[in-house]
């Protein structure tokens, strides 16, 4: 037995045995909690497993012929767009989950423990990587069956996945904030859709900005989601990478700088 179990009940727990980065370890422990929850109810991954397939089928076969003349060509154009779009929709789940945790009182327990204030939130954001990887895995496997191939090699493809997930994790903080601010889980979903719909559809996910009317093209070209998609497209299929990547990094940093403090403040205030 350890020293902690040998001490009498009255004594203070041996916090001094804490690892070097307690906040990181606490965040990882809470991320583990969220991953275990997914294992206990795999249906929690249903949205991220089915969405890429439904979007692909819908856009490639319903619109593909009309938009690009040939569904095969359109598939190639579309995969980077669907990849980012799926992650955009997957990030909303975190707000709903946090809202539920608070309603159930689980967070009261965390807040009464001597742990970093940020740990439950960081843990939730880290755990979502499992959802993101599932979505990307399903999408790439399904579109590979349809004939999609990357042209820039595996390292570039891996970097594309990394960039997309990195952006999604920064975007998650927006939904963490919304999840902590809005009263009910249903409302979180509503607000989330309002934010993600214009950003995802008003991007280069489905069509090139050149085809759009001037005002919309201007929005689309400056939409952060467009930069992410262009980066992923460049890394998977060739094309300029450096400029959209720089924009993506800038937007990601901006999201963190604005929404991490907002989320932390909302967390401290939330009763």
């Amino acid at each position, binding site marked *: *037995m*350890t020293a*902690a*179990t040998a*001490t*009498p*009940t*009255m*004594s*203070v*727990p*041996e*916090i001094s*045995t*804490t*690892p070097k980065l*307690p906040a990181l*370890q*606490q965040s990882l*422990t*809470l991320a*583990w*909690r969220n991953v*275990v*929850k997914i294992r*206990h*109810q795999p249906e929690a991954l249903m949205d991220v497993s089915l969405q890429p397939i439904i979007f692909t089928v819908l856009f490639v076969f319903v619109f593909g012929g009309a938009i690009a003349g040939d569904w095969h060509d359109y598939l190639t154009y579309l995969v980077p767009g669907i990849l980012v779009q799926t992650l955009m929709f997957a990030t909303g789940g975190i707000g709903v989950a946090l809202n539920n945790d608070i309603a*159930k*009182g*689980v967070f*009261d*327990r*965390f*807040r*009464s*423990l*001597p*742990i970093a204030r940020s*740990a439950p939130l960081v843990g939730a954001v880290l755990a979502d990587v499992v959802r993101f990887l599932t979505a990307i895995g399903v999408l790439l496997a399904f579109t590979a069956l349809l004939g999609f191939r990357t042209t820039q090699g595996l390292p570039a493809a891996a970097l594309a996945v990394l960039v997309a997930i990195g952006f999604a994790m920064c975007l998650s903080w927006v939904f963490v904030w919304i999840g902590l601010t809005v009263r009910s889980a249903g409302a979180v979903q509503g607000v989330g859709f309002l934010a993600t719909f214009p950003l995802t559809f008003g991007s280069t996910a489905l069509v090139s900005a050149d085809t759009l009317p001037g005002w919309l093209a201007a929005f689309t070209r400056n939409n952060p989601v467009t930069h992410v998609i262009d980066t992923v497209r460049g890394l998977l299929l060739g094309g300029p990478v450096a400029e959209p990547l720089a924009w993506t990094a800038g937007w990601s940093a901006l999201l963190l700088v604005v929404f991490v403090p907002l989320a932390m403040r909302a967390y401290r205030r939330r*009763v």
Partner: protein
Amino acid sequence: MTSDSPVIEAHGLSLSYGSTRALDGVDLTVPAGTVLGVLGPNGAGKTTAVRVLSTLLRPDAGTARVAGFDVLADPQQVRRRIGLTGQYASVDEDLTGSQNLTMIGRLLGLPRPAARARAAELLAGFSLTDAAERSAKTYSGGMRRRLDLAASLVGRPKVLFLDEPTTGLDPRSRTEVWDVVRRLVADGTSVLLTTQYLEEADELADDIVVFDTGRVVAHGTSDELKHRTGAQTLTVRPRDRADTATVLQVIEQVTGAVPTLDGHGTASVAVRSETVLGTVLDLLSTQGIALSELAVRLPSLDEVFLALTGHATQSENEKEAVA
């Protein structure tokens, strides 16, 4: 810290939600190794007081020290020394009992094997070993509450906050929770317990404070409060309705108060001590009157309230002002 300084000391705690004064100048003291029962109806401010003392809420005014540290200046130090079991079992339903406790051990900085060992030890102590690998959503209400209690004990707290630990439990589960609390107190843990049941405070608490609309309206031991309220109730029901008049007469003779009679032929009167029971029984049996009911019961919370505050509890209409 010396053992004779109080583990909880609060002065003038006040907190408002909008126009609702949830706490209005509350003073509390819990000496080390004792149990303080906080008694009151829904909306009296009990939960708010617990949330302030366990560092979940900042008060608008007032000071509080828990386990030697100021809840506002040193919340992390306070958190290292307290355990909190909320009104609604805050265990993670999707995790197993074992995973719930191991997670908290890890969060408290225990290495994985030590966290697992501590979890197993607590599960055994709470008769949950058989259910250790089942997800908590399959647990009964009593099991869930025991797991919740175990979760608040992983860090071996000096001070334990129990917010209505038996609300909604069946009588057997309630007794189980009481046994656990008694064991903890015997081991030296200090406890602040909120409850709506006078019986529960009577069973567990050394001292009782009564809350009403955010204020402490009475303070004392269970016996002191009973004497102040004088609201133990003697009830007598003769087997034969024809004896009712004699029963009323005997009761009045013994207690000096005029009893009331309900529709079932039960006579009842407020008494200060249960010793009248023997006298009444003796007098009635010498007159050959058979009884189907004879009891002295504790006052209900409503009766205590009425006696202490002059108004009834408002638990029907007012919800606890905390989300």
